[in-house]
């Protein structure tokens, strides 16, 4: 995963596509939220946001 993130950062720098960062961050947060909502104690707090 670290390797992928490093390559993704290199890609953003090379292609000057920094505007993709907010989109990817939102997607990652959403992904994490879905992950947590299905298998953790924080689930009840996340439900209202999903």
């Amino acid at each position, binding site marked *: 995963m670290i390797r992928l993130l490093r390559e993704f950062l290199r890609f953003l720098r090379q*292609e000057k596509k920094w505007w*993709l960062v907010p989109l990817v961050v939102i997607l990652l947060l959403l992904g994490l939220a879905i992950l947590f909502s299905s298998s953790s104690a924080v689930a009840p707090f996340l439900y209202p946001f999903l």
Partner: protein
Amino acid sequence: MRRILGISAFYHDSAAALVVDGRVVAAAQEERFSRRKNDARFPRRAIAACLAQAGIGVGDIDAVAFHEKPILKFSRTLETFLALAPHGMKAFARTLPSWLGEKLDLHKALAAGLPGLRPDVAHLFTSHHEAHAASAFLPSPFERAAILTVDGVGEWATTVIARGDGARIEPLEELRFPHSLGLLYSAFTAYCGFRVNSGEYKLMGLAPYGEPVFADRIRDQVVELRPDGSFRLDLSCFDLLADDYLTNDRFHRLFGGPPRPPEGSLDQRHMDLARSIQVVTEEALLGLVRRAHERTGERNLCLAGGVALNCVANGRILREGPFDRIWIQPAAGDAGGALGAALAAWHASTERGGAGAPRSATQPDAMSSALLGPAWTDDDAAAALQVHKARFSRLDDADLLGRTATALDSGKVVGWVQGRMEFGPRALGNRSILGDPRSPAMQSVMNLKVKFRESFRPFAPVVLAERAHEFFDLAAPSPYMLLVAQVAESQRLPVDPTATGLARLKQLRSTLPAVTHVDGSARVQTVTAEANPRLHALLRAFESRTGCPVLINTSFNVRGEPVVASPDDAYRCFINSGIDILVVGNLWLERSEQPHASLPGTFEALPD
């Protein structure tokens, strides 16, 4: 010794290829082993088959080359969804999980799929069209050539013109998503009720039944063909993020109705649509080919990408294009990307992780007649057949060839499994069903009773290369069945010109009615003794018995099934279809002697 494993996966037709010191040692598609047509999953079975062919293990691999740049492709996907949002949210939600899994983190997918891979092994990534261009040029017989790759879409590019010189491939021009000839053809494929990424062949086969009555409408309102060879789609006609069809209401109004549902009735409008998009595609390709010639000044052309499987267009490029010679990668679709990626890595500079090896062209090419898959010995085959208690006899070569020729002459349909399996979508005589092309009933028999597929679909002839000119107006050899040519005038018979649509199917059009399409064309495979000695010998045996050096050659499978790989697959298909005789190596099996009426199939049938 340097061993490079090429992989294509995660879209459609995943495959593996193994290049050892620059030589293509093995290549195979995953679908042949997993028995799921167009299988897109990580090609672990195909990899195992390639490694077994070379007698090595995963730990012996020195580099892995993947046929795409996943981050770039992911970025294109994100940008497309963002550009069209909020439209396509459903498709976005469906697509995203696969991207956040193995498709994006290829390092993880490679580690999971290749247990035992040494940690120092380089993971190399070519772009999608670099892989296609490498597969088109590097194994070709040319020292220098123009290269044209055309498909649906890779990362961003949909069409690339490049120049190949020695081991170097220099990209010159590209067209970018969403302006794509492959997507355009696929949109019409889906609109006419066939499955995208596999039904394009059916649309091409349907085209000769129709008239190009919609061609002007396509040129005026759907795709603009420009004088410089480029083209632009009118995006107001398409719904590129739709779940089922790629087209929208405007497109449907333009062409007279909603999409044809799969298995719906085929009427003249669908045939006219097929013919119209075929004509426009050919014009677009000819424009691109002329542009490639202008830009490079080369005399030779190499083609790859899914659109290069359009053998009708290839025939026109050969006849009407400006190039002296053309060479088409037999695995022109995405499966060939595995081979291209591995070859590109072998020749790429060491700075890019490659071997930096020089190249000299091989004659007739470096593809070993596309016979790059696994082979089974007669003893292996016998063991597999005995599991089913199959009844077979072991014949010597002369007896086997004589009996097969006799069976074919008497109208029998023969399943023919020999040597190494083909790489690419076509069966070239090692995993084939063969029949007598002189029989007027054979097309219908083989379509409906043997392969259980649509009656309109044509069959291809395989012909002794040395006698091909007597039967077909073919200006060059066609070893990979990728060129369509007219049946020679001397073989043609007069037909009623007033017949239309499927009524033309029943007309006797030539002395080879089973392989002559309704427009008098044929998708020819030429065979030399060097390329495939066994098939050549069978054609010779049939010729000496009948005077005819031509056979029907169609892939050994039934509708929805991948082409057979092993003797077990072949036996099951033989039992479950209308094939009369099965020949596996030197083993001879007759249907009437078998203890089964049917056997469970091992493939997952896919809808069309």
